[in-house]
């Protein structure tokens, strides 16, 4: 079996578990939506602040939801000897990384669509450059999923992992938060020219952390007990 086929198997397994348990659909996405609502309470919709800061609020909601999605992605490996099962199946560590990251990315994309619609409807946002928005979301999501998977396995099996994961993951993701927010602002304003350096930075981040994940996941997967 080659790497991509193995990765597709792992991604398929994770998405099948999601389809049956509906944790992302029933818990993580509603969580993202409640965050969007809470921001409106915090920033008072009448002041016109929400529309201006919508890109930042959108990515904060995605980032917080990512923490839950990553926790979930590794929680499903802890029961019924699932981890040993994957190990015995002879799957390559790189393939497990790519598969799990792809499954997280797929769930994040669904979440971004739902939360995005929420932001458009509730905050009264208008989009003037859809292409930039889509490209930014794609690059940022790959970066978020790769980094999340990497730190997810790092914290998996540790005591204190629930509190440790956000502290480890969020500072690393600060550049993604920054770049995706700036690129979204340019995309909403319809000045895509300003967004390309940010999209480039997000792409470099995504490639870098995907590469690190492919190389390092095996060692971390072995250590996670």
């Amino acid at each position, binding site marked *: 079996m080659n790497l991509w086929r193995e990765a597709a198997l792992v991604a398929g397994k994770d998405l099948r578990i999601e389809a049956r348990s509906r944790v992302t659909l029933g818990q993580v996405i509603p969580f993202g939506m409640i965050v969007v609502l809470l921001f409106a309470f915090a920033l008072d919709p009448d002041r016109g602040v929400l529309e201006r800061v919508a890109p930042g609020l959108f990515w904060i909601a995605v980032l917080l939801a990512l923490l839950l999605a990553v926790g979930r992605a590794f929680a499903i490996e802890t029961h019924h000897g699932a981890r040993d099962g994957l190990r015995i199946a002879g799957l390559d560590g790189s393939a497990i990384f790519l598969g799990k990251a792809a499954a997280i990315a797929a769930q994040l994309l669904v979440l971004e669509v739902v939360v995005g619609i929420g932001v458009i409807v509730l905050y009264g946002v208008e989009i003037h450059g859809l292409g930039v928005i889509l490209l930014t979301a794609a690059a940022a999501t790959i970066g978020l999923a790769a980094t999340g998977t*990497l*730190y997810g396995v*790092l*914290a998996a099996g*540790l*005591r*204190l992992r629930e509190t*440790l994961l956000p*502290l*480890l993951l*969020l*500072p*690393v993701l*600060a*550049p993604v938060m*920054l*770049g995706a927010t*700036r690129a979204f602002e340019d995309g909403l304003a319809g000045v895509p020219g300003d967004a390309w*350096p*940010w999209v480039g*930075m997000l792409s*470099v*981040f995504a490639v*870098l952390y995907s590469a*690190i994940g492919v190389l*390092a996941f095996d*060692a*971390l997967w*072995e*250590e996670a*007990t």
Partner: protein
Amino acid sequence: MTTTTPTPSGRGVTAAMAPDRDQLLAPVVRRVIGWLTLVSLVALALFGLWGAPTDAVQGDAQRVMYLHVPAAWLAYLAFFVTAAASALFLIPRTRAQVWDRLAGASAELGVMFTGLALALGSIWGRPVWGVWWAWDARLVSTALLFFLFLGYCALRRVPAADPVGAAKRNAIAALFAFADVPIVHFSVEWWRTLHQKATVFNPELNPQIHGVMGLTLWLGTLAFTLMYVYLLDRRYRLAVLEADQADVELEQAILDRTRARSAHV
């Protein structure tokens, strides 16, 4: 640089790794560095408070720089040592517990120096800039650096059943954090381009520093570097003693258990 006091450190649990080093520095070297640290810190206080002239623009507030700049420099050095030691640990040929402990000790000092640099910068910024905090590129990336390695230190504190595996995981985590530093730096730089250039390492601006001021800054850097080496040695030693203590406690617990059981019988 020899090991002196024989301790049972790491016996058993670290059998998979190369023999351990009980002390980072030979006691003589450590003592000399300790005294040099003290002397240079006193000299820095004298020069910083009285020797160097008062800055024409910033007034006495500028004197904070004699601590702030060395602290920031040491923060970078400490994190670099953490990354280098972590890489050495991960390479099978050079794997030894000394690198793991060195990485941990250096990261803690790095977090301390980063925190110090941020706090001192804030104290300096209040009278000079008029604000405690500005969203300047270097401020923001330093704050992120602080949290990146604070997370690493938190990870190191998590108790683990398998010390070798934990050390490997910590080393990988340190390299992840280090890989993020340039990205953080450039993204924040793009975001906030109104930063001021470094003064000492900028050749164009160098002549603008008064001779004694420049000397004091270098003295501060020397004093802080010596202090870093000394504290690194002490923190390393503490890690060795902690491991010894854990071993002793474990043996005691086993002994107590065995005694209690034989008393029952």
